């Protein structure tokens, strides 16, 4: 049981070494640009850029596939929906279903966009440790502090949550096994029985989590954590020429993608 979508693949590729802020801005800008214009030539530019980024990241294709596979049905479903329900002059009709060239075109656009979107999103999460990404988002969210949004505290919450996802999954697995050893069969019975079977897992999981949260809060206080006080970072973010190059390339790619 693992969250594949936000998994980090450790490495030292040029993409890994980029500043998380630059990567986040580039990916966000490209994700928005992807949806601005219907053009195969434009989409081809975005796809090529995404493929290039993926190649440079030196992440094994199996890792991308693992992130992509769960989304395959979504891509397939949207393709079908666009194909069958899009407006246009039908050249084939069956009941309320109409096939049109326009529909095929729209379906192809949307599927391509989703694939490119997942690809660039994966490059971002696979090459950026979650903590670095959080740090980057905090920096980007700085202007919000003027509006009294507690960005640092929010970031800490996200960081702690990310840190404890694997721990909780391991805990969940252990408790499931323990209750299986006591005779619970999680795969048998009707819906009611299955939901009831979760009680012996969820109650201990919550209790353990609350205890852990208590301990963590005490440990943080013991190390002088106080909310609202500016903290320094062990690894301050440093942008370099590579990041400027990334943003410049992204600008060129987006311009090309929108003009072609």
């Amino acid at each position, binding site marked *: 049981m693992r969250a594949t979508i936000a998994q980090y693949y450790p490495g030292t590729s040029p993409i890994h070494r980029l500043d998380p802020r630059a990567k986040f801005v580039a990916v966000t800008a490209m994700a928005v640009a992807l949806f601005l214009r219907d053009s195969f030539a434009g989409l081809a530019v975005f796809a090529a850029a995404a493929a290039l980024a993926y190649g440079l990241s030196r992440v094994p294709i199996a890792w991308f596939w693992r992130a992509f596979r769960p989304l395959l049905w979504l891509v397939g479903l949207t393709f079908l929906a666009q194909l069958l329900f899009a407006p246009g002059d039908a050249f084939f009709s069956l009941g309320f279903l109409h096939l049109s060239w326009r529909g095929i075109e729209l379906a192809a656009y949307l599927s391509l966009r989703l694939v490119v979107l997942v690809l660039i999103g994966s490059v971002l999460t696979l090459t950026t440790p979650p903590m670095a990404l959080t740090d980057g988002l905090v920096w980007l969210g700085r202007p919000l502090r003027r509006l009294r949004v507690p960005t640092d505290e929010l970031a800490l919450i996200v960081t702690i949550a990310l840190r404890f996802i694997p721990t909780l999954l391991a805990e969940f697995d252990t408790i499931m096994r323990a209750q299986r050893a006591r*005779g619970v069969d999680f795969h048998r019975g009707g819906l009611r029985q299955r939901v009831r079977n979760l*009680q012996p897992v969820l109650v201990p999981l919550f209790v353990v989590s609350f205890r852990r949260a208590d301990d963590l809060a005490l440990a943080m206080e013991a190390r002088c954590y106080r909310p609202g006080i500016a903290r320094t970072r062990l690894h301050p973010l440093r942008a370099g020429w590579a990041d400027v190059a990334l943003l410049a390339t992204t600008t060129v790619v987006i311009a090309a993608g929108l003009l072609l």
Partner: protein
Amino acid sequence: MSAQGPAPRQGSTTVGASLACRRVSFSYSEGGASVPALRDVSFSVPAGDAMALIGASGSGKSTLLQVIRGLDEPEAGAVVLDGVEPGAAGYAERQREVGLVFQTPEVQLFAATAREDVAFGPRRLGWSEPDVADAVARAFELVGLPQAVYADRHPYSLSGGEARRLALAGALAMRPRLVLLDEPFVSLDPGSRRDLVAILERLRADGITLLLVTHDVDLAWRLCEQRLVLAEGRVAAAGLWDFAGDDARLLAANRLREPFLVELWRRLAYAPGQAPRTLEEAAKALA
């Protein structure tokens, strides 16, 4: 639960089941790669015996317990329970007669009262209510928690040692014939440890087969006549303790030490007639 399952075995003494592992192998998959945890593990425990399962952290001890209980399928090899091969008739039943007590089992407690929690396993087995009540009463008695005092208490209101005993009662209420314990002494105070040792001695006296994972070699030696040393998923030694032979080297190689008494005897290294008989003599001999 109204469904009537098979009645639990009758009689106050439960006879233990024998256990044999034949070339058992198991790997975890981690990030696409497969990490071997058990390799060709073979050993056997006669019915009613106790075996201590020792080895450094990460040597595969907990994994072996899970495989024996059937929570993980071995990739190769077989776990033979009470002489019954996997796949043969009655194997699933034999598996249900294996009690597994996890590390810090008190985290599995979930019911509103101690009694309900202990009754959970027997009810899953489909026993009739009188049988369940019987099994629960016996389990409370076995772990030394008087029902009158504890049955209606909330599991989370118990002390650490009491909660651990309650969790153990939950496993014992299912009348296991083989009990697997994963580091049951961890984070218990000395009093609770003593209580737990007494409970395990009682299980032994009842004839239940035990497989006990522990880093505490003193207790392992005291409770078990046999030991199984695992090193990186392989059996380094299985069978009776052998302090005159290779055990000292074996234990040291696996980040363990000899039982304190054995070490003491070694340090006294006495010749016949010169053994210290008083504390003063011992102090002189050890100086």
